[in-house]
């Protein structure tokens, strides 16, 4: 049995840890203490559970995709419907937890980074619900790709700041959020949206998402009477994947498969498949796999999916990869868009393009394992935000 626990310093084997300006240490220690005490506090846990029941819409349901399965070797395909959560993705699990922690620490302002805009929308939603000031940093390039989500955040009362430095995408939005945090750390909580960043973020964000796997494990066994053969999820930073993987880690009969964004193909260099095509390094406060050049400079990532377009990945994924507990594959833009269209046409569910990478992985793995296999896929987000990108991709006139 493999048990993954981050130690006091938040290490996962050689990965994780804390690589940040000294100015942030106090805030990270405060956050770690707040999270640890909240974990043991029945009042906090009850409040979060109540929110999930009455606001998020948890537990999220399990949908069997029978018509889609015909294209996946006939394997049984079970979709964990995080897309049906309030705000349309798994991101709400983490933001509600961290927003409650923000209040617990007596802070009044949250900042967040966003790529596809899903985390930004979720953060703005939690801020509205709890009366917090909210500033979202978003790469200028992404504000164009995901203009609908920019409008949603503004309607929810958040301030959206387009980031014009570097590659103008998620990585640069994180840089800018960290600069804001260094300056305003006394009043501000940085509500990081994925399982990356300095300790305690990778552990804490995982703890808020592991409910996905805990629910799914029960639901799958109720439906089919046994554990699935494989659990699949897309991986950018890796929050939805760690969320569905975590409860299955001790169950070594269950393969854990992360699908990274292969962009134009890993061999072209234009991709965001950090574990598949990167090497160990430090980015945004944590040691993990990084897309980098020979001088340790971060290389720009490429993906049709803004939410996976990130040259780093959570340190727990790096560790799960190295010890062989989880496997990671790259899915190209074309493969993802094929799966996007297929799920829409066979099941009436338009997935997020991020999620479509996991579905493309299901087509591959289903064909490899055949009709006796049972695959659990985290349907991490809905695709409304991607309609414009998809229309352009498929040549649909708007």
């Amino acid at each position, binding site marked *: 049995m493999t048990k993954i626990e981050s130690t006091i*310093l938040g290490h996962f084997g050689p990965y994780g*840890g*804390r*690589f*940040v*300006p*000294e*100015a*942030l*240490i*106090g*805030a990270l220690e405060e956050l770690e203490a707040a999270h640890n005490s909240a974990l043991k506090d029945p009042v906090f846990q009850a409040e979060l559970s109540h929110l999930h029941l009455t606001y998020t819409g948890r537990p999220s349901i399990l949908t069997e995709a029978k018509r889609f399965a015909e294209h996946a070797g006939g394997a049984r395909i079970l979709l964990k419907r995080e897309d049906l959560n309030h705000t349309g993705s798994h991101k709400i699990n983490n933001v509600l937890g961290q927003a409650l922690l923000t209040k617990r620490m007596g802070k009044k302002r949250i900042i967040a980074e966003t790529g596809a805009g899903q985390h930004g929308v979720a953060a703005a939603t939690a801020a509205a619900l709890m009366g917090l000031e909210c500033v979202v940093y978003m790469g200028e390039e992404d504000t164009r790709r995901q203009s609908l989500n920019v409008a949603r955040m503004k309607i929810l009362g958040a301030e959206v700041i387009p980031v014009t*430095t*570097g590659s103008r995408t998620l*990585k*640069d939005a994180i*840089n800018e959020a*960290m*600069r804001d945090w*260094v*300056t*305003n*750390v*006394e009043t501000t909580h940085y509500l990081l949206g994925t399982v990356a960043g300095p300790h305690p973020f990778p552990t804490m964000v995982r703890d808020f998402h592991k409910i996905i796997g805990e629910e799914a494990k029960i639901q799958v066994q109720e439906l089919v009477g046994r554990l699935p053969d494989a659990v699949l999820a897309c991986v950018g930073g890796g929050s939805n994947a760690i969320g569905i993987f975590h409860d299955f880690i001790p169950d070594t009969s269950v393969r854990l498969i992360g699908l990274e964004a292969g962009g134009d193909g890993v061999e072209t260099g234009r991709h965001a498949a950090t574990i598949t095509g990167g090497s160990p*390094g*430090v*980015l*945004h*406060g944590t040691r993990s796999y*990084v897309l*980098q050049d*020979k*001088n*340790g*400079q*971060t290389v720009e990532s490429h993906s049709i999916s803004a939410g996976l377009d990130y040259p780093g990945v959570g340190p727990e994924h790096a560790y799960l990869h190295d010890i062989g507990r989880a496997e990671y594959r790259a899915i190209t833009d074309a493969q993802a868009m094929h799966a996007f269209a297929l799920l829409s046409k066979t099941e009436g569910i338009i997935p997020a393009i991020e999620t479509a990478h996991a579905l493309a992985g299901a087509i591959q793995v289903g064909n490899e394992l055949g009709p006796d296999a049972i695959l659990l896929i985290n349907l991490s987000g809905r695709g409304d935000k991607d309609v414009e990108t998809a229309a352009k991709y498929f040549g649909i006139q708007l």
Partner: protein
Amino acid sequence: MATSLDQLFAKVRAENRAALIAYIPAGFPSIEGCHKAIKALVAGGVDAIEIGFPYSDPVMDGPIIQAAAERSLSQGTGASDVFAALKCATDAGVSAVVMTYWNPIEKYGVDEFAQSISENGGSGVITPDLTIEESERWSEAAHAHKINRIYVVAPSTNDGRLEKVTSQCSGFVYVASLMGVTGTRTSISSGAGDLVARVRKVTDLPLAVGLGVSNRVQAKEVAHYADGVIVGSAFIKCLAEAEDEAQGLEAITELAKELSKGVREGR
């Protein structure tokens, strides 16, 4: 064995003044231009130079240094250029260190990096995002190659942690004058003096104050309580805004002269 930097602080203490430390990214404004700028800074009287390793994700830096790093990287600046600039500074007769985010060190090889610093006459390295908890390999390498390890402390660093961080430092302690990123400020936070006083209680190491200093008056003010005054963005701004190279070099020499008067007027 004392590094050149250790000797410098002993000297300025004897002269009852603060040292003037200039920061410039390698490869800025160009690979060659950086070497000229180093010589112009030395001509203006700086006591020591920090060579910045330009990095793609400089989370501690404000817009001026970000833009300089981007310009430098667009010209292909790499580790060899950083070490060449370091050697240029030490050849020009001043103490020199490298300031870098951690990942370029890890990618270069931790021990190899410390060795290259030493081989190029450098006194040490400032590592703004290396926490002491993650510093074991670096400590061993720096010790093996007899170079200084310089860490940053911030106004938010509590007294207990100040003691831990400074116990890992040598050469000097980099005291961040405020909570925020690099850049010029119209006034130096009053918190800087308070922080210096707190750090003095836990260490006898020289304390150099950075973040925000851009003119003679501010240099004088900081030199009153600190052993070193660090200026970065103000020099970079001169070079970035100059109409041509010659004008930029002249401007930084002039600014260095002014600042070097400031660090002698503080006490």
